[in-house]
């Protein structure tokens, strides 16, 4: 059960990353490589702030804002300095490595005995339910504090993604979505597309940094290398979500990204739990992603064929 809860919590935390990648890759059609840098940036900011005695909730918010700034830089490079899309992300990602090192002062900060958002959640659960309370579910006993952390994070994720969804329905949000679809037309309508790119990529990287900040607090340390590979995880989650749910509307795609992220973590956990040779882990996860993408397509094709025959 610990394994399941662990995988679910991880999935929820990485959902924020998937949402960020959804904003830049889907809404803006922008191959934004800043993600790997801003994920670690979130961890770096939260770790540096927490060990200097900051209140963890404020610190998490600040990590989000720092991510926004990093993303805005990428957007700025793209829209005002006319740097290529890929290159703008690469430039910011590369410089973030040094910036993260400077923020932390060293490459790795442990947060084991400090108060983090996660320990706050655990403490709340302890106070309400007792330290070693266990919930029994169909014969499995679960430590309540783990369950509480998961449920509260899930609630936060729900509120956050709802807010994001509502934001994309406001005027400015709609303009942002339109920029990704057809920038020329939007420009003709008198919207400052450059500004929209800056804001949008900023928002995307804010989500990613938030994910990094939560991850650092959950695993108990921040490391300058923790962003490595995150872009791939995020895109994989997004694509799993797409093939599960389709890309017809913003809300559905967002839900898909979250589900994809959770599902992906579960699948990885299953693979680990079945004692698969860890050397094959990356290959197996690639095959899993492929299967999830191809399978719905094949089902659809078959259905269409049937329809044609009938």
């Amino acid at each position, binding site marked *: 059960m610990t394994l399941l809860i662990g995988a679910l919590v991880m999935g929820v935390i990485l959902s924020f990353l998937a949402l960020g990648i959804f904003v830049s890759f889907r809404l803006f059609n922008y191959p934004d490589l800043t993600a790997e840098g801003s994920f670690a940036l979130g961890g770096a900011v939260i770790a540096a702030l927490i060990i200097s005695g900051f209140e963890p909730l404020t610190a998490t918010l600040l990590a989000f804002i720092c991510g926004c700034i990093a993303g805005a830089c990428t957007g700025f490079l793209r829209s005002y300095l006319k740097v290529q899309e890929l290159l703008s992300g690469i430039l910011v990602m590369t410089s973030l490595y040094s910036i993260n090192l400077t923020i932390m002062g060293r490459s790795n900060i442990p947060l084991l005995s400090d108060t983090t958002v996660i320990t706050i959640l655990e403490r709340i659960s302890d106070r309400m339910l007792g330290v070693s309370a266990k919930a029994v579910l169909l014969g499995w006993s679960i430590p309540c504090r783990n369950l509480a952390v998961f449920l509260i994070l899930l609630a936060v994720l729900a509120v956050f993604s709802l807010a994001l969804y509502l934001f994309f329905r406001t005027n400015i949000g709609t303009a942002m979505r339109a920029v990704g679809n057809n920038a020329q037309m939007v420009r003709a309508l008198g919207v400052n597309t450059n500004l929209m790119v800056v804001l949008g990529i900023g928002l995307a990287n804010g989500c990613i940094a938030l994910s990094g900040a939560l991850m650092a607090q959950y695993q108990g*340390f921040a490391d300058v290398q923790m962003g490595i590979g995150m872009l791939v995880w995020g895109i994989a989650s997004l694509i799993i979500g797409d093939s599960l749910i389709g890309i017809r509307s913003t809300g559905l795609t967002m839900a898909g990204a979250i589900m994809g992220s959770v599902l992906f973590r579960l*699948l990885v956990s*299953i693979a680990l739990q079945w004692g698969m040779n860890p050397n094959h882990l990356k290959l197996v996860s690639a095959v899993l992603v492929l299967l999830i993408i191809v399978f719905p397509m094949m089902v659809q094709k078959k259905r269409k064929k049937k329809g044609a025959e009938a």
Partner: protein
Amino acid sequence: MNDRKRLLLFVAKRLMLGVLLIALAGSVLLISDRRRELNQQWREKRATFYFIGYTDNPMTEDCLNGVIDGLNDAGWNRGREFDIVIHNAQGDMTALNGMIDNVVQEKPDILFTSATPTLQTVLKKISGIPVIFTNSADPIAAGAGKSFESHLSNVTGICTMSDFEGMVSLMKEIMPKARRIGTLFVPGEINSCIYKDQFEIAAEKGGLTLTAVPVNSSSEISVATQTLCSKEVDAICQVADNLTSASIAGIIQQARAEKVPLFAFLSETVKQGAVGAVARDYYQAGKDSAEMALRIMRGRRAADIPIRYVSRTKIILNTDAAEFFGIKIPPDVLRRADEVTGRQEGRIR
């Protein structure tokens, strides 16, 4: 209105698939977990160990082999007295988290960890299982405790901080005229930074000055080595970290081109062309931790076993390389060395 209803239905249908799949995956995970729980109850009384590494590298492999051989030497055979499950996160911190959740569930008798990120994740997530770490430069900085004696109650292990004082004295014997030594270090690796700082202290004590040049990726190795050579160092003395040990060939090449003698902290580097090394024996580190494991299996508490350094340090020399750099290794150093490679070996001994 009808349209709206249909849309809602459609949305619900779509979301359902995702929820269903998640539930399915979750229950598969749970059921296979349950099966294992039952297995656990019926399992023969055979000890289960876990070994988790962070990246694949020679140091981790040496540690692992040491652990297994150490247990064998004490009469514990794999498959008879103990089972060992080996995981490696391949540099992916999210995978590391999953692996360690898995260990929490499996409740092995002892968990061995290699590398600092593994240790740190374990420190956060595991409290009831005895943990023995190896291949960790500075467990105290990583959060394993206050000192080598007073540490977390379930964690102990072998610290593999390099023997910098030994290196400084070896340097002084082999190159008595050397005053400035240099190294590359990786600001992104905590162990590399700690090594650099510790080496600086040891060098100063021995009357040498250390020049350190930062390097961030394997593509910068050549340029960084050139920069280091241009700072007029008498010798390069490369600290051991993941990046530079993986791209040591580039350092060796540049050092040879600039005729600056190279020393190292890994035995492998000497075979590739460094003059000498004072190497912590990672294989021995594995054996030492196997010995700790046996003590725990016999009923000692991890809390009562102090963290300690690897019990063995090897001096390894390469006479070919020494000749190339125009260095004469004093005969008594050669005699004292644990391993000598190179053509002249037979002649001198």
